[in-house]
């Protein structure tokens, strides 16, 4: 059987892509998910704060996912859970395996990659000391506690102040653990302000900025850690050590897109972010294969994942029904000074519009986003405040795209006078 569309990954990205493709008239759509249920990472994010943009109400992760899972009913979209995708090929064959059907090769006219991201582990950041039990990523702890119902420790130190770590500081405290400290290498937190307030301050958990763990002690189980202040070179400063007795260390040191399948398929990946390189319609370097969600870039807000994934689903439908968009005279999108992680990197000339997402590399007060075609200013958008933790968004309309004479545009962030 030849599917119109196969979606790899049943998280919010995969669900939204499948639904949007259905709406645009694709018939046979299959979602493949390795877990026993759909919903992806949202199943373990039991806290609230999802859906404020998309549903205009504050939902928990499972509620947000649940709404999309309900929308599948009656659409004829098939979901195959407990199935691991092992390989994706450029001629759009999907190799997968599950306990009931064994090994299968499925064929599709189009594919959406929506595998999400995984956490950086301790190996990626190297802390000196022993390797006892009790050191785990914050996301793994979240899964143990929220889905399986196992507490992972009683006295906890958290390394990294990303949102997952902050959320877990509150969660462990509410479940009766003592969270002794949250330790952040940088002079500012990587998490949202609201999470500092409601996850740390509410429970008097100290946040040590410009600090790092210099030693983890214990043979079989963690028995304690030492932290120290770091200088501007991010090296520990002697004499600033503080010891904690703890049985657990949670690592919350960032996420990286899950792109083994993509890389093995020979699809272009941005080596700096490990994200899939996409066009404005979420098409990858291989026509007919699209990507969306955390596999492209790590999103803070699931609402934007949904929007982006609907775009991918619609583009897959267009590809199946009308064929590929011409890649001639494409417009490249470049990063100006202090701008990083731009998505997309290329725009089809025939695009109706294009949304550009990026992060700035430092904090900006009264400032502007400027999009230039050579020396010509295409767009100039004022911003009161921009920070690396928050994704910025610029929308280029059809008429702005028409005005582009060259074959590349550049996005700048700059301070402006009030």
């Amino acid at each position, binding site marked *: 059987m030849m599917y119109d569309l196969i979606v790899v990954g049943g998280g919010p990205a995969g669900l939204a892509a499948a639904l949007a493709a259905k709406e645009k008239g694709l018939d046979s759509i299959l979602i493949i998910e390795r877990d026993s249920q759909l919903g992806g990472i949202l199943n373990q994010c039991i806290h*609230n704060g999802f859906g404020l943009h998309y549903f205009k109400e504050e939902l928990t992760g499972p509620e947000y996912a649940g709404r999309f899972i309900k929308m599948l009913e009656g659409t004829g979209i098939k979901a195959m859970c407990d199935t691991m995708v092992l390989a994706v090929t450029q001629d759009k064959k999907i190799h997968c395996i599950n306990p009931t059907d064994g090994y299968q090769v499925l064929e599709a006219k189009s594919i959406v990659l929506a595998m999400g991201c995984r956490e950086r582990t301790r190996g990626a950041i190297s802390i000196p000391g022993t390797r006892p039990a009790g050191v785990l990523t914050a996301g793994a702890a979240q899964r143990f506690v*929220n*889905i*399986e119902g196992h507490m992972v420790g009683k006295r906890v130190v958290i390394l990294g102040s990303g949102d997952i770590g902050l959320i877990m500081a509150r969660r462990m405290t*509410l479940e009766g653990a003592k969270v002794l400290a949250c330790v952040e290498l940088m002079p500012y937190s990587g998490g949202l302000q609201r999470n500092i307030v409601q996850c740390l301050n509410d429970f008097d958990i100290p946040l040590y900025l410009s600090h790092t763990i210099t030693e983890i002690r214990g043979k079989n189980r963690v028995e304690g850690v030492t932290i120290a202040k770091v200088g501007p070179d991010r090296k520990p400063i002697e004499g600033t050590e503080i010891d904690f007795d703890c049985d657990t260390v949670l690592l919350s040191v960032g996420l990286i897109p899950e792109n083994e399948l993509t890389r093995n398929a020979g699809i272009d990946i941005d080596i700096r972010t490990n994200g899939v390189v996409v066009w404005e319609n979420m098409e990858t370097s291989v026509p007919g294969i699209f990507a969306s969600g955390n596999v492209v870039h790590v999103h803070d807000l699931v609402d934007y994942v949904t929007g982006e994934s609907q775009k991918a689903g619609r583009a897959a439908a267009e590809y199946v029904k009308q064929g590929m968009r011409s890649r001639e005279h494409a417009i490249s999108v470049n990063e100006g000074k202090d701008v990083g992680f731009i998505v997309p990197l290329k725009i089809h000339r025939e695009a109706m519009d294009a949304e550009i997402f990026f992060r700035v590399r430092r904090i900006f007060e009264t400032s502007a986003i400027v999009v230039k075609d050579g020396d010509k200013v295409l767009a100039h958008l004022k911003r009161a405040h921009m920070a690396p933790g928050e994704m910025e968004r610029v929308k280029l309309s059809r008429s702005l795209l028409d005005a582009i004479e060259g074959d590349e545009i550049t996005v700048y962030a700059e301070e402006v006078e009030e």
Partner: protein
Amino acid sequence: MKELICITCPRGCHLKVDEENGYEVTGNSCPRGKEYGYNEVTNPKRVVTSTVRTNSREYPRCPVKTNGAIPKEKMFDAMKLLDDIVLAVPIYCGEKVIENLFDTGIDFVATKDVQ
């Protein structure tokens, strides 16, 4: 004057609440920030999310939330009430798990379908 960060949405506006002048709130970008600022100084409240046991072997926990904010100092008491509960499947999203917590009119509700 109290300085706060609004936690109602990810934007995190920096609020100022003037206790001497009728709790006037400034720095908010929307009306919800005004309400948050007033409550935070007079009677701070939080939504509590957690999990409860189920009788399912595949999904041993079901996530729950308070369907409104409860007084902050009641958070741990609310958590304790969940300890002895075992929900029988099927469980439906929105189903009440504990009603009228501490006479606030607010309930713990399930946030997921568990079959």
